[in-house]
């Protein structure tokens, strides 16, 4: 664990891997140290924001050093060799127009079940959120080439993953969902799309994601959901909060893909 300074109102705690970051976040979230105003998990780090009038870096450092090592504790990686990870779903600085893509859709893609999504997220031990997906994404064929799997195998492996929300970022309600099958891990697209529709289900590196609203995006689109993962009129607005177990289920007819 490395504790890095981050201005006068925060510390950035760096750990060895995603699991450790999730574990540290979970422990701090369950039992927040006094004076802490915000905890922001990410791929290798947890930001601890604090009220300088109520606590200080020295006290927080002592508290962090006093935490018992996580079960999966490992030697920290050397700082100059971080694993490439957690690419932003858009690729800043790479604003090449979206590559033309063949949309492979099955039927009208609609399923009555998709209109009745189930699952909610409570604050402490979040219940599993089920995401109904029409697996008809335009990047399935590209992914097949990159992974050596057939689109049907890609979908099968995605459905079987033990997914959970590791952290959020990029946009309100955008969750980096960990647990992707190792065989599906590919870097994000060379040419990000300038517009990805709301509800697009996508993968990149070790994550799945659901675009909460239309935005630029560089992840590989594998499907589409009607589930609103972020809705300001709902309380809580974000369905996918860190720690939430996620189950993807296939809906609609998608047998056309790569057949």
């Amino acid at each position, binding site marked *: 664990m490395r504790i890095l300074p*981050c*201005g006068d109102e925060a510390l950035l705690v760096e750990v060895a891997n995603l699991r450790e970051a999730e574990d540290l976040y979970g422990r701090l979230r369950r039992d927040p140290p006094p004076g802490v105003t915000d*905890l922001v998990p990410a791929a290798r780090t947890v930001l601890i924001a604090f009220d300088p009038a109520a606590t200080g870096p020295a006290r927080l450092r002592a508290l962090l050093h006093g935490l018992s090592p996580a079960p999966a504790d490992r030697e920290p990686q050397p700082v100059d060799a971080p694993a490439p990870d957690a690419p932003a779903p858009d690729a800043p600085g790479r604003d090449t127009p979206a590559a033309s893509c063949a949309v492979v859709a099955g039927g009208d893609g609609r399923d009555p079940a998709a209109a009745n999504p189930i699952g909610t997220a409570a604050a402490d031990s979040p219940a599993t959120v089920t995401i109904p997906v029409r697996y008809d994404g335009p990047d399935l064929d590209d992914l097949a080439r990159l992974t050596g799997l057939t689109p049907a195998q890609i979908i099968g492996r995605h459905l079987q993953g033990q997914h959970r929300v590791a952290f959020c970022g990029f946009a*309100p309600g955008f969750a980096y969902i960990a647990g992707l099958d190792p065989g599906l891990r590919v870097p994000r697209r060379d040419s990000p799309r300038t517009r990805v529709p709301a509800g697009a289900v996508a993968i990149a590196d070790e994550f799945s994601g659901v675009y909460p609203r239309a935005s630029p995006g560089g992840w590989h689109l594998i499907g589409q959901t009607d589930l609103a993962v972020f809705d300001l009129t709902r309380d809580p607005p*974000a369905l996918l909060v860190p720690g939430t177990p996620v189950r993807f289920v296939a809906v609609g007819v998608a047998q056309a893909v790569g057949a």
Partner: protein
Amino acid sequence: MTGSGEPSGEIAIVASGPLATVQDLGRPGLAHLGITRSGAVDRPSLLLANRLVGNLTGAAAIELTYGGLIARFTHPGMIAVTGAPCPLELSGREIGMYAPVDVQAGALLRVGTPARGVRTYLGIRGGVDVPAVLGSRSRDTLAGIGPEPLVAGARLPLGREKSDPPTVDLAPHARYVDEPELQVLSGPRADWFATEAVSTLWTKTYEVTTDSDRVGVRLRGPAMHRRITAELPSEAVVAGGIQIPPSGQPVIFLADHPVTGGYPVLGVVVAEDLPLAAQCRPGQRLRFRPARRAVNGLPAH
């Protein structure tokens, strides 16, 4: 309607200027959902405007970008204008900044263009009472959360919640220097940069570019080169963070910064100096220097 029975009224926007948004202290504590704090980019100016009109600290005001607001008040009230100094006219009569001013029903306020600085705050007794979104009336321009930017024809209801009658009648003007020097606390990723890059930051001047906004102050100057060129896994960033993208040109994050970033943050501008950065205009130059305090937040001496 509740409260004292005193009419609160509305403010009718006749012209908004280049960008006018409703801002309060933002929505802290939601970053783990991908929601940034937002709020006034020059918080001391917002707080001062509220204090001058006797509002609670959380009241919402109007943040103007390069002035230009014209607005009519439907009811008698009280205003105070802080931040970047603009010529002000209330129903044809010149009024001053940094002081509470009584407003008659039907009065028309005209805010000119600031000679210095970027953001001016119009505090109104009772506060702007548009519906709060996730606990705040701030417009997050990056995420598109909160009340829409003001447009001509918009009508903003004013609230009834006030604290005590204002007790301050004139506040000192904010300093606007031509070439501000911002104190920076090194880290979290200073070790990703070559030593020369860090000394460049302390010794060179940087110019504010025209693509600066509420997300960040974008700078042009000597490029800062990285020692570690690997991809940085996305990590949380904070307001004041100086992020160095591959171009080597720094960006100082302001209130609407993204929750996470994929480029290393070399240092963080201390909270008290962030308003100086937020008030820098394109073409203006600024400098950085190490904060006069230890990295652990304690005084250095």
